[in-house]
């Protein structure tokens, strides 16, 4: 800067103008930093903020004074102006935090005051998903099914291997899976995943329960899937594990009809269709007649008149064997839909994410 000012009269003049502006910056800076530091309440800080950054604030109007400056001068002044602005803003921000902390600190002196009894007006709401699950528990309880639960974070063994899904089997493509990082787990820890289906309960049920078996699982599952209105990485599944002598696909059809008629509250046609899952054979896809067009074909069912509602099948002999059950004597039915999908259809809900975003405006409707 000093060097430049020795170059000649014109340059000297420029430097003088810059100096003037800079002096003004400095004056605003020191004056106001002082004021901000001394402010003792929110109101004062707000007032100072307006004084500086309001429409006619001291800082806001400064650029008007740059009108006569050349491009070179502006290049020199610009960064300095920005510095001034950010210094003052930072000071105000800091002050606000200090004041907030003061309020918090004062509150932290408060004592614990509890009132052991409370008169309550008005009730809360049950979440539609748990309400639906309760309905299902009652419904299948009537048929003798009882509840069972299995871990959310599970081994590859129970989630895949014992279900006839060996490693590197192409069927693994059916389940996009979250894996657990083992860095902080014991050295003996095997592969862990977030379970991709409630079927991780199947072999556990066989191991722990006496035959005949009628069990049900209603719980959370996970898939490595990006979120949108139709896709969730977290969802609830309902699964029946039914093992006895002489079970057939006709019993499976009965369970589908019983379930859909009851939960949708009206007569609805249900059909089975071939579908492949490695842990059942034959494997079954369950379709319900589209409730929007009553089977005529519409946009929602893609014109076919049917909606896929669940998966099922006769438990694969290998899976029964893995659970210590003789497939020559017993056979089994595994049956289960994803619950959110049925609720979406039942209530005409457009976005599956609404179930887990905690928005009471949405939840209050149920």
């Amino acid at each position: 800067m000093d060097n430049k000012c020795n170059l000649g009269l014109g340059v000297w003049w420029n430097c003088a103008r810059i100096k003037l502006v800079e002096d003004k910056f400095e004056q605003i800076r020191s004056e106001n930093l002082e004021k901000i530091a001394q402010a003792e309440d929110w109101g004062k800080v707000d007032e100072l903020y307006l004084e500086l950054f309001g429409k006619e604030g001291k800082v806001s109007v400064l650029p008007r004074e740059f009108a006569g400056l050349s491009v070179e001068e502006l290049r020199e002044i610009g960064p300095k102006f920005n510095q001034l602005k950010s210094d003052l803003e930072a000071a105000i921000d800091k002050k606000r935090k200090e004041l907030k902390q003061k309020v918090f600190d004062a509150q932290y002196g408060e004592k614990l005051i509890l009132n052991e009894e409370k008169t309550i007006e008005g009730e809360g709401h049950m979440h539609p998903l748990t309400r639906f699950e309760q309905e299902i528990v009652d419904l299948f309880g009537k048929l003798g099914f009882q509840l069972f639960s299995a871990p959310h974070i599970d081994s590859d063994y129970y989630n895949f291997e014992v279900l006839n899904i060996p490693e590197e089997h192409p069927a693994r493509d059916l389940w996009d899976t979250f894996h657990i990082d083992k860095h902080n787990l014991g050295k003996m820890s095997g592969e862990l995943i977030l379970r991709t289906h409630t079927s991780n309960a199947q072999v556990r049920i066989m191991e722990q329960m006496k035959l005949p078996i009628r069990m049900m699982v209603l719980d959370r599952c996970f898939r490595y899937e990006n979120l949108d209105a139709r896709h969730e990485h977290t969802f609830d599944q309902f699964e029946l594990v039914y093992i006895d002598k002489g079970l057939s696909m006709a019993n499976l059809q009965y369970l589908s009809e019983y379930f859909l008629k009851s939960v949708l509250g009206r007569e609805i046609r249900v059909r089975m269709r071939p579908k492949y899952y490695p842990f059942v054979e034959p494997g079954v896809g369950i379709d319900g007649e589209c409730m929007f067009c009553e089977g005529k074909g519409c946009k929602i069912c893609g014109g076919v008149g049917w909606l896929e509602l669940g998966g099922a099948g006769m438990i694969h002999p290998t899976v029964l064997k893995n659970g210590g059950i003789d497939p020559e004597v017993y056979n089994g039915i595994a049956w289960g839909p994803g619950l959110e999908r049925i609720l979406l259809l039942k209530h005409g809900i457009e976005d599956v994410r609404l179930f887990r975003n905690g928005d009471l405006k949405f939840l209050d409707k149920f």
Partner: protein
Amino acid sequence: MKVSIDWLKELVEVESVEKLIELLPLRTIGTKEVTSDFIELDMKGYNRADTLSMRGVAYEVAAILSSRVKFEEENRHIEETGTNLQASVENEQDCKVYMAARIEGVTLGKSSDLEAKRLMDAGVRSVNNVVDVTNLVMLEYGQPLHAFDGASCGGDASSIEVRRAREGEKIQTLDGEERELDSRDIVISSKDQVIGIAGIMGGKDSEVTDQTKVIILEAAIFDPKVLRQTANRLGLHSEAAKRFYHGLTKRRLVQAFEQAIEEFKKLGGTVTDVKVVGGMVDEVVDINLNPSKINGLIGVDLETSAMIDSLTKLHFEVSDDQSQVRVPYWRLDCRLEVDLIEEIARMYGYEKIPAKELVGERPAKIDQSKFEKEQKIRESLIDAGFNEVLSYSFASSKVRIGLDWSDDELVRVANPLSSETEYMRFLVWPNLVEKVIENLKYRKEVRMFEIGKRYQVIDGQVVEENVISIAVADGTDNPLEDLWGRLQVAAKQNGVEWKVGQELGDKSLHPNRQFEVMEDGDVTGMAGEVNRQLVDGLGGTSRVAVAEMVIG
């Protein structure tokens, strides 16, 4: 699998395409997309290797439409010949069969319009007549083929070896990417360099170009597990690789190999050498036919003749005494009696199976108190004015910032979708605080609870616990009073006693307004007012109280 409709009609009699489209999902497999040119079968995770070939699809279509295929099963035989090509396999496990032919004089050019249309229907790009032959034959027979440029295999003294890659060995694949390989990968190698990753992608250096004078044609069966691991690691799931994963047969391999040679001869080629490594016999599978068992499992009453009729349409051979059936060689998915039952059930039509009520004795009652207790607590909390919500099992990233969780105690996801799914929730209440703040934009008082799991690492083990988690902001400067008062009402209703215990010393909570929650003399959880900085960091200005108890 995209099935070209024009091509299909040349392989099988199809009276009505509409009928076929209607029947496919009811008898065989769902369809992903149907246009006037192709039908795309939904092959994701499917076990039917045969439906990855036009011939396999044609057999299936003939069976479900009760029509006939228009082709013969060729019984082809391969003779080794020539001295200009050597082929060897390092490890038989990696490659059951390897066949190679050296072909001279093929003129490179464009494929015919018919061939280009078939490829387009199948979703495969037409490259040149040589590559197109390998792709068309793969589509028809299901057997992947590859053509190498003969010069890169050693010219007149060509030699090919199937072996594991050496540590750090590199190859530039056809897509232009350089790939580093190691001993987990099976490669095709000439004397001096790797010319392809077995079953997955060929090398750029051995690509067939207009300079190519000699082609080396390859057909093989590689170990699907090894291939899939390599493909997963390199992110290279090609059409060919898919067919290896699902399984291949030696008979189709020979048919495809011969067919490709025929096609190259049409393009002016002369076969100088053929080399074969490995045996040529497919496994023969017979399954018992037990009609009463079949009817029992399906729940119908079919005549044996109807079963045999269905199986015959599917080319299963029934023994003279009707006690056994032989599986057609291309049906690698049929190995067990239940597989046979599925064939009969689907040919009959799953949709015709009637509903039958459940009979048989009901299992004995088992202890359900854990579930009943949870439901009772839920109902009592609702009666006490709390709203039930569900939040993700992950810890929201915003919440994590404000809390002093040690990485050692958190369950971390190895492959998160984003920072929102990177950690499992260590506690449930922080997720609820975030939800309370969001709801306070629309209402003055928010009371919510969630019953669900939290996930912690304790002594190197993952521990999941089912908890009741509660969060309240009631507009006062002591929301804990409201929360605790209501909780006492709920406790009374479901017959538990939750009592105030010792101070916790939890920095994420108000220093005086926090305590352990006791149940029957044991610590079962905590309650407290959330530290103001934490709420502030989440963009909230209200005072929020929380509680979290384990459901015993």
